[in-house]
C-alpha cells in the first residue's frame, strides 16, 4: 500500500512537469493549429539557461529560474518571428516539419555549447524527508508548488485580462476573432511567450528532479503530446488533468510492467483516448 502511495507522489511530480509542457503545446495547437515538435527541446534549452545562472553566475536558484524563463521566452518568440511567421501561410503540416528541424537545431546548439554529458544544478545528495514511511525530496515541494503557482497565474491571465480573453477567442474561432478586431499577431506573440515560459519551467523542474541532458526534453515530448490530446487540444485545463493522469499512470505502471516501457504507457493512453473520444476529456478540437 505504501508503495502505491509513493508511486502516486512520483506521479504527481512527473505530472506537474508534463503539465507545464502540455499547456504550451495545447495553446499553440489551439491558436496556430500545428503540433509543435520543438517543444521538448525548448524545455531542454530552458533547463540549460538556468544552469548558466546557477553554475556560471552563482545566482540563487530562484533568480536563475527567472533569468532562464525570460531567455527561453525570448528565444521562443524569436523563432516565431524569424521562421514560423514566414511559414504561416503554408499548410500547417509544413510548420510541423519545420518545428522538427527547429527541435534538432536547438538540441545541437545545447550540445555545442554545453557538451553531450549529464549536468546537475547542485552537487551533493539531497536528504529526503521521511514521513510515515514515505520519501519526499525537498525539491518536489518546489516543483509541484512552482507548477501550481504558474498554472494559477495562467488561469488569472486567461480569465481576467483582455489579452487572455482574446487568446481564448482566437483558439475557439480564429476568423471570428480577427473580424471582431483582435490583433491576432499580438495574440500569437503572447502565445509563444507563455509557451516559452512554461516550457523553461518544465525543463528546469525536470533538471532539478533528475539531471540535465541534451535529450531530456525530446524524451518528454511524447508524454507532453499525450497529455495535451488526452485533455483536449486547445484546452489548457484539460492539459493539466491529462498530464496528471499520464504522470501517475506512467509511475503506477511500474507495478505491472518493466520500467523501461514507461513511455509506452503515455502512448497507449493517448491512442485509447483517440479511439474512444478524439476530442479528449475536456472536449477540445479534433484535428
Amino acid at each position, binding site marked *: 500500500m505504501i508503495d502505491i502511495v509513493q508511486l502516486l507522489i512520483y506521479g504527481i511530480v512527473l505530472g506537474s512537469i508534463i503539465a507545464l509542457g502540455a499547456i504550451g503545446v495545447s495553446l499553440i495547437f489551439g491558436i496556430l493549429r500545428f503540433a509543435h515538435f520543438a517543444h521538448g527541446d525548448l524545455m531542454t534549452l530552458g533547463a540549460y539557461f538556468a544552469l548558466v545562472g546557477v553554475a556560471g553566475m552563482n545566482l540563487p536558484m530562484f533568480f536563475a529560474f527567472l533569468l532562464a524563463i525570460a531567455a527561453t521566452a525570448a528565444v521562443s518568440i524569436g523563432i516565431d518571428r524569424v521562421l514560423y511567421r514566414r511559414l504561416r501561410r503554408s499548410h*500547417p503540416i509544413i510548420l*510541423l516539419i519545420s518545428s522538427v*528541424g527547429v527541435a*534538432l537545431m536547438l538540441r*545541437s546548439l545545447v550540445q555545442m555549447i554545453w557538451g*553531450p554529458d549529464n549536468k546537475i544544478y547542485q552537487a551533493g545528495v539531497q536528504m529526503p524527508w521521511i514521513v510515515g514511511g514515505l520519501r519526499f525530496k525537498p525539491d518536489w515541494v518546489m516543483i509541484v508548488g512552482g507548477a501550481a503557482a504558474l498554472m494559477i497565474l495562467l488561469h488569472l491571465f486567461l480569465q481576467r485580462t483582455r489579452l487572455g480573453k482574446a487568446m481564448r477567442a482566437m483558439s475557439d474561432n480564429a476568423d471570428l476573432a480577427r473580424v471582431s478586431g483582435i490583433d491576432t499577431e499580438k495574440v500569437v506573440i503572447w502565445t509563444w511567450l507563455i509557451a516559452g515560459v512554461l516550457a523553461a519551467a518544465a525543463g528546469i523542474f525536470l533538471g532539478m528532479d533528475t539531471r540535465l541532458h541534451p535529450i531530456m526534453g525530446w524524451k518528454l515530448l511524447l508524454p507532453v503530446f499525450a497529455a495535451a490530446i488526452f485533455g483536449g487540444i486547445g484546452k489548457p485545463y484539460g492539459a493539466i488533468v491529462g498530464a496528471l493522469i499520464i504522470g501517475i499512470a506512467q509511475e503506477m505502471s511500474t507495478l505491472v510492467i518493466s520500467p523501461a516501457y514507461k*513511455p509506452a504507457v503515455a502512448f497507449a493512453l493517448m491512442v485509447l483516448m*483517440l479511439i474512444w473520444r478524439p476530442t479528449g476529456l475536456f472536449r477540445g478540437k479534433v*484535428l
Partner: protein
Amino acid sequence: MEFAGVFSYLVFFLTMAGIYAVLALGLNVQWGYTGQINIGVAGFFAVGAYTAAIMTTAPSEDHLGGFGLPFVVGLVAAMIASGIVALAVGLITLKLRSDYLAIATIGIAEILRLFLKNEQWLTNGVRGIPSIPNPLEGLTGIGLGLGYLAIVIVLVVLTYWAVERLYRSPWARVLRAIRANEDAVTAAGKSVLRFRVEAFVTGSMFMGLAGALYAHNSGFISPEAFTPMFGTFLPWVMLIAGGSGNNRGAILGAVVIWGVWTMTPTLIDLLNNIGIVPAFLAERASFLRIFLIGLLLEIILVTRPQGILPERPPRPIDLPADSG
C-alpha cells in the same frame, strides 16, 4: 589519400546513398503522394534491419534464430514485417488528421526502440546482432564493396520502377486527391481510410527493405544505429530537398544530402584551419553538422518548399476529339 582509398570511400558513399534513396522513396509514397507525416521512419527501418538479421544469420544463443536463410528471403521478410507493423499502426491512427499520425509515429518509433533494446531473447538487447552475412561472401576487398553496391543500385532501380508505376496508377490518383481534398474523395464514394492504410503500409515496406540492405551492408546492428537523426530526420530532409512527390527528386535528394552530410566534417575542419570556425566548435563538429542540416531544411522550407525537382503529376489522358 591514394586512389584506392578514395575509390573505396566512393563505393561506400554511394551504397549508403542508395540505401537512403530506398528510404526516401518509401517516405515519398506516404508524404509525397498522400500527405501523411511519419516521424517514425527509424522504427520501420529498424524492424526491417532486425528481421533481415534474424532471418539470415547463423543460429545463435544470443537472439531469436538466426535461421541462416538466403539474402532474398531476408529482404522479403523485412518488407513483410515492416508492413505488418505499419498495418497495425495505420488502422489505429489513420482515421485522424495527419498531426495525430505524426505524434503516434514518434510513439511507435520510441516503443520499437525500447522493445529492441529490452527484449534480449529476440534481439540480444544493446549488444546487438553481429556477423550478419553479406550475400557476396565469396568476394573480397573492393570487389565485395562494388558487388554490394550493384545489388543496392538494382534494388533502388526496382523500387523506383515500382513506386513510379504506382504514381501513374489510378490508385495514386486517389491518394493525391486525398492529399488535396479528403471530403471530396469521401463524397466520390472512396474509402479514404483504406487508401491511406494501403499507402502507409506500402511506404513502410520499402523502409523495411532499406533496413535489410543496411543490416547486410554494415554486418552489425544495435538499437543505437536507428536514432531519429539518422533514421528519420535525414530521409525527411532528403525528400523535401529533392522534391516531395517526385521520385527522381527523392533519389537526387538522397545523394545530395548524404553528400552534404558526409562532407561537412571536412568542411568544418577546413574552415577551422583558416580560422573561421572557432576550435571549440570544431571539436563538436558532429553537433554543428546537425545544426547545419536543420538550418538547410528551414531554408528550403522558406525559400523553395517544392524542392529541387518539383512534383509533376501525370497529365490527364487526352480524350479523343469526337468524344466531346
